[in-house]
Every structure is written in structure tokens, then in C-alpha cells.
């Protein structure tokens, strides 16, 4: 029989932060969808200027990195710090690809003279993706700190709440992108 745990994994404080992020991104996602109704043709034309391949690669990157973090948590639950830190290193390595791809995408848009005031679509595109990009950077910093502590044997099968806290944040970053990708890059 499966026993229900009292609380979600990690420190409860991170879940308060996650819920706040949910509200913030919900406002942006829904705002984008309803703003589109005012000028569907302009949104569709502007969307064609986005590189769907970049969005696709970054989705695969975040899913893979998130999965590696799951493996890291599983490894520490078996008290295997070495394996856990290896998975975290892989998660950071793959996660870093997101940063590179996104910077290239942003540079491409800026070279085309696209900015926040270009039109409503690009205002939402830049707000959503830059805001999410900052979350990815913070997530990678958190993963790096967890990696360092894991390397030093700071987590064990009995004490790994810190790792679960960071992992929960990284999965949030993944979850937000899962909604962002089809909404901004695909649906028209």
C-alpha cells in the first residue's frame, strides 16, 4: 500500500515560491492569449519570425536536464553521492545548452531590430522568454551549489531536503517552458 507523505519534496518555502511563480506566469500566459485576439494576423505574422527549432531544442534540453535531476535525487536516496553528483553535472551541462541557444536566439532578434516596443507579440515574447531565461540562470546556480555540496558528501539517504528543494525549482523551470513552447512558438 502506498503511504501518502505529508508535504511535497524539499523545503516548504520553495513551494510558496513555486506557487507565486505559477500566478505570475499564469498572468503572462493568459495575457498573451487574450492580447492575441486583438490582432490575430499580426501575432501570426510575428510568430513566423521565431525559430521553432530553437524552441524545440530547448524543450528537449530542459526535459532531459530535469530527468537527470530526478536521477540525481534517486541516487542520493540510495546514499550514492558520487552517482548523484555525476547526474547533477550532466543536468547542468545539458541545462547550459539552453542558455547558449537562447542567447543566440535573442541576438538574432536584436540584430533584426526587434525589441519590446516592436509590437505586442514581441513585447510578450521578450517578457516571457527573458523572464524565463532568468529563472534558468538562477536554476543553474542552485544546481551548481547542490552539486558542490553533493561532491563534498553533504547529502545522504537520510538528509537530502536541500537537494529536493533545488530539484523542485528546476522542475518548475521545466514545467513553465512546457506551456511556453507550444503557446509562443507553435500555436497560431
Amino acid at each position, binding site marked *: 500500500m502506498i503511504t501518502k507523505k505529508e508535504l*511535497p519534496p524539499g523545503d516548504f518555502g520553495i513551494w510558496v515560491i513555486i506557487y507565486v511563480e505559477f500566478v505570475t506566469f499564469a498572468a503572462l500566459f493568459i495575457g498573451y492569449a487574450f492580447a*492575441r485576439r486583438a490582432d490575430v494576423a499580426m501575432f501570426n505574422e510575428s510568430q513566423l519570425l521565431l525559430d521553432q527549432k530553437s524552441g524545440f531544442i530547448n524543450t528537449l534540453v530542459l526535459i532531459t536536464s530535469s530527468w537527470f535531476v530526478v536521477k540525481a535525487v534517486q541516487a542520493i536516496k540510495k546514499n550514492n553521492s558520487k552517482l548523484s553528483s555525476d547526474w547533477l553535472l550532466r543536468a547542468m551541462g545539458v541545462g547550459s545548452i539552453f542558455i547558449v541557444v537562447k542567447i543566440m536566439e535573442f541576438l538574432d532578434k536584436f540584430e533584426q531590430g526587434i525589441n519590446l516596443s516592436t509590437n505586442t507579440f514581441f513585447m510578450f515574447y521578450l517578457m516571457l522568454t527573458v523572464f524565463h531565461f532568468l529563472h534558468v540562470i538562477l536554476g543553474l546556480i542552485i544546481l551548481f551549489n547542490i552539486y558542490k555540496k553533493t561532491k563534498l558528501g553533504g547529502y545522504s539517504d537520510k538528509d537530502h531536503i536541500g537537494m529536493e528543494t533545488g530539484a523542485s525549482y528546476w522542475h518548475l523551470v521545466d514545467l513553465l517552458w512546457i506551456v511556453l513552447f507550444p503557446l509562443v512558438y507553435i500555436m497560431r
Partner: protein
Amino acid sequence: MKIYLTLVSLTIFAFLCGWLELVSSTIIVILLITTFIKGQLIIDHFMGLKNVQFKYRIIPILWLSIVLIFIGVAYYT
């Protein structure tokens, strides 16, 4: 591994819909449903909420549902 492969497969499906310009009203509904499935898999299996108390699990599920329903309404009405 099964969860990961499902997420990758649904992502490839979404990409192909855009890449092959197959997006239509029907496809948008399918994309919203597949996005819900992907989100649900992340919430349950990556975030590890599958076996926590229902009141904690339901918050991200409700968030995902409300966001996708509003997006659907905005695209259809």
C-alpha cells in the same frame, strides 16, 4: 525512462505540428491536451507530487488546467 520518452515524443509531435504547418483548430485542442499530459507527468513524476497529500498535488494541476483552459477559450471565442 518511460516518462522521459513520453515527454520527448509529445514534444516532437508539437514541433512537427508547427514545422509542417499543420496547426488548425483541431490541432490546437490536441496540442493543449498533450501539453496538459506533459505538465501532469512533470508534476507527478519529476516534481514528485504523485504520492503527496491531495491538497498539495491539486494546486499545480489546477494551475495547469486553468491556464490551458483560458488559452483554449482565447483561441476559440
